[in-house]
């Protein structure tokens, strides 16, 4: 719309412009601009100013404290001019953050990859065929996302410890149960995202592949997968962040050597407070480091965020 009116304006003879006959166009633009303005200007400005301050101040405080020596944070000497990067150096040796990071990458990465693979496989028949129970299946996919985490934690823990005793295999503390658990959220989420995407991909595409002699699996892998790559990436990212952000399951299913970044940080905070030497500065630098990748990923995938929200996000 804006582009069209600009083009029109260029088409106006210069004489007409200088004589002020372009005002109908201007006015049209104003109507449009006004239409976008849902509230009085002063109110919009006030709301933006207040909310930006309220959001930025605690975040700024977190970053500032991450560069402030531990003792100064505990004493609250905010004005200290002794900003230092030592927190960012010492936190790696004071808490097993590097190990936690590696564990998180392994756990969240595998569970996201498995979730997307399973989801892609399921999204194909769900969008390509009409069969009895299809709608029920889709409803189930949404329904399971409302099951609260604590409802799943206890029985999974009971099953894993039972399997551990009965089959005498080591389970709790290994990667396996935690990867499986994160698929609880990853599979419905990625299936739903991929169903939504594949629905908009014309069927002619995979039908052509079938005519050319591809199997269904081949059509999915060779034709639809490349087309659906954006949705695959988004599903992977959302499933990955489930593992990155979780504390509930990881605090039960992991041990010293398999703990995720979130747990490493949580224990670091708990132990440092119980020993009476709170390392708040290092805690904040670790907090910055563990949120920065997530914030960057989200800013990149901003456009898809609403889609992921509607598909059921689990930030709790």
């Amino acid at each position, binding site marked *: *719309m804006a582009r069209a009116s600009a083009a029109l304006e260029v088409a106006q003879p210069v004489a007409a412009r200088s004589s002020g006959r372009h005002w109908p166009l201007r006015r049209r633009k104003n*109507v449009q601009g*006004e*239409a*976008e303005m*849902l*509230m*009085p200007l002063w109110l*919009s400005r006030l*709301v*933006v100013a207040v909310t*930006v301050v*309220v959001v930025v101040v605690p975040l700024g*405080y*977190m970053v500032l404290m991450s560069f402030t020596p531990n003792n100064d*944070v*505990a*004493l*609250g000497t905010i004005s200290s001019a002794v900003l230092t990067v030592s927190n960012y150096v010492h936190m790696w040796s004071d808490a097993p953050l590097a190990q936690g990071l590696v564990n998180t990458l392994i756990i969240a990465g595998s569970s996201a990859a498995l979730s997307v*693979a*399973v*989801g892609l*496989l399921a999204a194909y*028949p769900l969008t390509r*065929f009409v069969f009895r129970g299809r*709608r029920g299946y889709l409803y189930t996919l*949404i329904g*399971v996302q*409302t*099951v*609260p*985490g*604590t*409802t799943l*934690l*206890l*029985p*999974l823990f*009971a*099953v894993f410890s*039972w399997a*551990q005793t009965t089959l005498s295999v080591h389970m709790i503390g290994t990667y396996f149960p935690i990867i499986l658990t994160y*698929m*609880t959220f990853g*599979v*419905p989420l990625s299936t739903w995202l991929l169903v939504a995407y594949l629905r908009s991909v014309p069927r002619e595409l995979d039908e052509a592949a079938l005519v050319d002699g591809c199997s269904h699996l081949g059509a999915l892998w060779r034709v639809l997968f490349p087309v659906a790559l954006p949705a695959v990436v988004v599903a992977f990212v959302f499933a990955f962040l489930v593992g990155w952000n979780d504390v509930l399951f990881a*605090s039960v299913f992991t041990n010293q050597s398999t703990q995720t970044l979130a747990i490493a*940080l*949580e224990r670091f905070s*708990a132990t440092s407070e119980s020993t009476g030497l709170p390392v708040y500065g290092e*805690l904040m630098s670790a*907090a910055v480091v*563990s949120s920065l990748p*997530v914030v960057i990923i989200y800013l990149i995938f*901003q456009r898809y*965020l609403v889609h992921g929200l*509607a598909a059921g996000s*689990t*930030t*709790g």
Partner: protein
Amino acid sequence: MAGRPRGAAPWLVAAARRWRDRPLWMLLPATVALLVIVLVPVVITIWLSLLNVNVSTLRQWLGAPFYGIHNFINAFTQPSTLGVTLGWSIFVSFAFSLLTTVVITPIGMLTAFSVHRRFRGRGVVRAIYLIPYVVPTFVTALTARVVFLNGSGLVDKILGGLGITNGQTYWLIGPNAYWAMQLTEIWATWPFIYLMTLAGLQAVPKEHYEASALDGAGKFQRMRYVIVPELAGVLKLAMLLSTLFHFGNFTLAFVMFGSPPPTGVEVLPIAAYYNAFDFFNYGVASAIAVITMVILIIPGYLYLRSTRLAGELA
């Protein structure tokens, strides 16, 4: 195409053909996953809630003695190690999720309306708005722990500096803990409503704004008769989802406070968690989980209905 192999039964050939032509087997991994890690655990939770399962019977929980509704009675009548009963936790959870939704809805709507208009720096403002929501909850909780420190934290500094309090409030223990958690949750989650409202606004056809502007509708009239009706659906969904998610809040209460957390923040997930992994009473913990599920059935059902699958997928 080559005709059926000699000797193969017709039904087998038909099955094989169906397998090839309609590969519903591709649903198998997802179905198994959903069954094994969601539906079966839900059934087991219900079963566990009827058994007397504690630390000595957990590993052989299948053989634990049947306990009937005793776990439920105990949950409501006997305080756990946390010193609270189930009734209290239900109350805190309700208060927390409803209050959060009630407060963040107007904030989210106002901000979405404010940045709907184009202005210089809008992209930056929108990016800033995303940050509190996308920062991992455990990071928000750790930061809140430092921000709410007694005396030396940012909140006490500001309140003390303004003379509202003496700057020596205990936020992380005692009765103020609930409000510290509530404020933190509001700070972290209002962008959810904002994002949903924004999505709803984008779905309103441009012509509707323009038509109402040309017809001389004032801002208030337009808001009342054009925008709000168009947004009603998405807002209802957003409020429902917000209530649903905040009811399951665990991480904030778990990470923000010491262990065990203060009474005021003992929401249902915290109660279930501590009953199981601190008190080792899995039966009571399962009973709490079952009650959580029962409470969430109604909003969950409303959510399913509002997704309007029928229209979208038919």
